[in-house]
């Protein structure tokens, strides 16, 4: 199996001059292609921090992050943005979408930044809308979509760039049970059918049950890591 993500002794200390907060205390983690992994743990255990490091949104205090063969932690800021654009899909808890763009335009947006051809953008956006079951909402702006629909557009947007993996920080936190299951179904389907590597954090037991691998963080360290 190919490794998509590898972290080496990752640590993160916030506020190291005032009152240091040790958010991550040496995380070694490997994620293989096609894995469907949940990161769980109590509030403040470092889930978001870990995802931010892996996503290249923040710099670790020490340790390294590899994505494929690239040492992401060694990239300069400008290179890093471009690297994220080409390799990582993001789904956040909220505020995922550009309010002034329609669902379809939001999905195309990443491909636009990647300078894909018009035809490819169009075809992929339509395909993804179909996969997340929102073909009829293609021309609707986010504020007219429900929370669950917005998150599905966000998942589609994250996949549009054909990333190496998708990171999702509590993607279901703001959703009701039905919408949460719906989103999970889609994520699971994409994982199984398109072998998308998915790494997400959650508090939600309903979500945890669906994951194929569950990593538990406690106080910024991996307390358990089980595949099932």
């Amino acid at each position, binding site marked *: 199996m190919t490794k998509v993500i590898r972290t080496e002794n990752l640590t993160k200390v916030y506020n190291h001059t005032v009152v240091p907060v040790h958010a991550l205390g040496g995380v070694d983690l490997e994620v293989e292609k096609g894995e469907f992994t949940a990161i769980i743990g109590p509030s403040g255990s470092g889930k978001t921090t870990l995802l931010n490091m892996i996503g290249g*949104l923040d710099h670790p205090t020490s340790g390294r992050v590899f994505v494929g063969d690239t040492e992401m932690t060694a990239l300069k800021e*400008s290179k890093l943005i471009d690297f*994220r*654009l*080409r390799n990582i899909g*993001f789904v956040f808890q909220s505020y995922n979408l*550009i309010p*002034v763009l329609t669902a379809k335009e939001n999905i195309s947006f*990443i491909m636009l930044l990647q300078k894909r051809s018009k035809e490819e953008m169009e075809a992929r956006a339509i395909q993804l809308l179909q996969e997340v079951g929102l073909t009829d909402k293609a021309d609707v702006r986010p504020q007219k979509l429900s929370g669950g629909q917005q998150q599905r557009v966000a998942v589609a947007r994250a996949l549009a760039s054909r990333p190496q993996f998708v990171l999702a920080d509590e993607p279901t936190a703001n959703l009701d049970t039905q919408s949460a299951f719906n989103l999970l179904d889609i994520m699971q389907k994409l994982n199984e059918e398109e072998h998308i590597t998915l790494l997400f954090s959650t508090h939600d037991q309903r979500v945890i049950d669906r994951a194929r691998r569950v990593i538990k963080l406690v106080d910024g360290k991996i307390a358990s890591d089980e595949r099932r």
Partner: protein
Amino acid sequence: MNGIVKISWRNVWRNKRRSLVILMAVALGLWGGIFATGLATGMVTQRFRIAIERQISHMQIHHPKFIDYDEVKYHIPEAAELVSHLSSDDFVMSVSARTMASGMVASSAITAGVQIIGVDAEQERATTRFDEFVVDGDYFTDAGRNPVIVGKRLADKMKIEPGSRLVLTFPDMQGEIVRASFRVAGIYQTTHTQLDELRLYVRRSDLQALVGEGEPVNEIAILLNDVEHLSDVIAQLKNRYPELSIRSYAEISPEVSYMQEMAGITYLVIIIIILLALAFGLLNTMLMTVYERTRELGMLMAVGMNKKRVFLMVMLETTFLTFTGAIVGILLGGGTVWLTARNGVDLSGVGGDTLTDFGYDAVVIPELHTSFFLNLVILVLCTSFLASVYPAFKALKMRPAEAIRKD
């Protein structure tokens, strides 16, 4: 790129009320600035045309010494031949040859220093339409002896009217003082009241007879068909008559052309001040916008929108906002100028006689030059650039991880 243009344009309309307020500010500011500029430009153009067509003409020829000494003896040699040469030039519309003397005028009431200008009635009519300035009496029409046309201001001071008698005193060709009695034939009034008080018009032949020695001519004023040919005509004449002083209106009256240049700069400065004030409003609006969108900007950078594009997006949004307002302002301002240009704007209520005292007409036809609009567009562009740089840098400062985390 295309997508960023789209987002920026739609972002302008996200907070409609806020955008409309700043947009109206830009539009109204420019409307005022443009109309004021139109009025002022119209005044200057009018002043310029009056100065040239009714007063200075396009060019004048003198004996070089006449300019400094103002004495009749410094006359143009072989003036008649020169006048006929000029009259046959295709570029020349009309020529007026004048005999001039500085002297004194005396009536029963007062005495005043004056410039006595001897003109040929027909030539002067063709060159400065002087006959139209005559408000009372006649313009050298009857054949009576020694008629003189006096400016209104002077006539009022001297309490004279057509039919009154005046005594003029001036040096002749030898420098001997000549006294002669003239009969007031008419009263004239130009837009330049100060000059009206100084200048007396008599028949050239009368003055020439009094100063003696042939038919001296001190000044030849030339009106061309088209000002475009001015430098060509001057060059030719200078070549042909190197011993004469041949000057364009700009050399005779530099203030006339300076006035145009200076006016152009003044209006731009006014527009710049208006735009600068607007820039602060725009800056404020854009800063609010950027702060409000902290999370969204963080998300955009997280998913891979690079700094160049974020910067461009904020810049474009500001530019769209500014230009939408500017276009409305230009349409309003340009429209107002266009509408008022038909009948002119009567400023006599505002300026009163002050305007005419300085050689302006009270009814101003507003006008604008294409170059003004070009400068305006460049300035508006600079304004939106100025107003957007700081907010755009603020937008770049967002750290995606923190922007997203905030709840």
